[in-house]
C-alpha cells in the first residue's frame, strides 16, 4: 500500500469521524438544551439530578466513561454498540459543558422581554421558544462551537471501540507499513482540516446572523 492509497483509507475514515462528531454533538446539544430549559422553567426538584450529572460528566475522564459504556455494561448483559458508547460518554460530557454554557447565555436574556411576551398573551413555553432560546443560542454560538471542536478532538478514542474512523484506519495502516510518522502526520492534517472547516462555517454563520446588541458570551 503506498501513501496515496493510505490517504484514501484515511479519507474514508474521515467520514466516520464526522459522523461520530455530529452524533456526539447532537447528543450534547439535546442534553444541554434539555437541562437549560428545565432549569429556566424552574423545575427545581430536578436540580440535584442536573448538578450530579454535570459534576460526574465534567469530572470523569472521557476514556473511563467510554470504557464503562463499552466494556463495562456488557459484563452485566447490556451490549452497547460503539457509536452509542461514544454518545454515552463523549456526547454526555459535551452535554454537561453545554448545559453550563447555556446557563450563562440564558442569564443574558432580559427578564423584561419575557414579561413583555407574557403580557402579550404568550404561554411560558411560547415565550421560551420565541424569545429566550433564540437569544440564548445566538449568544452561545462561539462557546457552543468551541465545545463541538473539543468533541472532534476527542473522537480518535472511537478507535478503541472499533469505529473505523481516521485513527482506526491510521493505526491499521501503520501496523502493516511501519510508516508511522507519515501516516499519523496525514491523519493529523485531516483532523486539522476538519477543525478549520468547522471554524470557517461558524465564522460565516456568525457574520450572517450578527444582531446588534446581542453580543456573544
Amino acid at each position, binding site marked *: 500500500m503506498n501513501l496515496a492509497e493510505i490517504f484514501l483509507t484515511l479519507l474514508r475514515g474521515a467520514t466516520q469521524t464526522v459522523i461520530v462528531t455530529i452524533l456526539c454533538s447532537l447528543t450534547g446539544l439535546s442534553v444541554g438544551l434539555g437541562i437549560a430549559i428545565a432549569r429556566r422553567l424552574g423545575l427545581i426538584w430536578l436540580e440535584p439530578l442536573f448538578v450530579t450529572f454535570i459534576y460526574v460528566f465534567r469530572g470523569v475522564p472521557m476514556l473511563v466513561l467510554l470504557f464503562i459504556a463499552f466494556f463495562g455494561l456488557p459484563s452485566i448483559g447490556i451490549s452497547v454498540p460503539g457509536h452509542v458508547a461514544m454518545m454515552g460518554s463523549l456526547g454526555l460530557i459535551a452535554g454537561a459543558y453545554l448545559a453550563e454554557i447555556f446557563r450563562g447565555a440564558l442569564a443574558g436574556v*432580559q427578564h*423584561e*422581554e419575557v*414579561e*413583555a*411576551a*407574557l*403580557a*402579550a*398573551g*404568550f*404561554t411560558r413555553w*411560547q415565550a421560551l421558544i*420565541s*424569545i429566550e432560546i*433564540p*437569544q440564548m443560542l*445566538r449568544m452561545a454560538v462561539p462557546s457552543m462551537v468551541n465545545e463541538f471542536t473539543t468533541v472532534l478532538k476527542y473522537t480518535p478514542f472511537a478507535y478503541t471501540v472499533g469505529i473505523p474512523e481516521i485513527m482506526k484506519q491510521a493505526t491499521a495502516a501503520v501496523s502493516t507499513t511501519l510508516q508511522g510518522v507519515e501516516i499519523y502526520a496525514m491523519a493529523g492534517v485531516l483532523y486539522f482540516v476538519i477543525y478549520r472547516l468547522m471554524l470557517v462555517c461558524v465564522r460565516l454563520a456568525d457574520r450572517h446572523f450578527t*444582531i*446588534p*446588541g*446581542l453580543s456573544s458570551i
Partner: protein
Amino acid sequence: MALLEVRNLSKTFGHHTVLDGVDFDLEAGQIKSVMGPSGCGKSTVLRCINRLVEPSAGTIVFDGKPVTAARSDLLAIRQRIGFVFQNYALYRHLTVIDNVTLALRKLRRLSPRAAADRAGAELRRLNIDELAAQYPAELSGGQRQRVAIARALAMDPAVLFFDEPTSALDPIMAREVGGIIDRLRRDNVTVLCVTHDFELARTISDSIVFLSGGRVRAEDSGDRLANDYGDPHIRDFFTKGRTSP
C-alpha cells in the same frame, strides 16, 4: 358597564403592603392616568390587572369577564390588553417588523404576509415604517417606544397600558409621547397610563386616579387635583414630592 372594573385590589409582598384596596373603573374610549409619589404601587396596579403579578385580594373584571377568577382565560385576556413597558422590552433578537409581527404570527396565527401588512400599517401610523429592518439596539429611546406602541396596537387591543412612558426619555421626547397618546384618542383607543409625570397626566387624561400609600386618595381632573386639594397626600405631592418617579 365599564370596560375595566378594579375592586378592592390589594397586594402584599411579604410584610410589605403595596396596594391596599384600590378601586377604579375605566370606560371604553377613556384615557385615564394613575399617578402618585414613587413607591405608591402604581406599576403594580397594571401588573395585577393582567396578573403578571398575582393580586393578594380583590376582583378585576375586564369586558364583563372576571380576570381574577381561578378559571379565567388569562391568555385571551392578555392578548386584548396592549402593554407598553417602561423600558419598552423590545425583543433584542428580532428586527422592528418582527417585533410587531411575532404575536400576530404565533398567537393570532396570521400568515407571514398578513402579519407583515398589519404590522406595516401600525408602523406607518407611528411614523416609523422606515425603521422596519432595524434591530432594537440601533434605535433611540423614542424610536423604541414607538415600536413598543406599534407592537401593542397591532393586536387590536381593547385597552393600551402605559407604564411610566416618559421616565426613560429626555424632556423633548417626553412631550412627544403626550402627542402620540393624544392622537390615539382620535382613533378611539382606550388608555390606562401609570405615570409620575403630572404634565403628561394632565394633558392626556380624562381623569386621574391619585394613589398614595397603596390607596386611591382621589379621582379627578388634573387641574382640580393640582389646585389646593383637601387631602394632605395630594397637597404634599404637588408641593414637594414631584421630583422622582
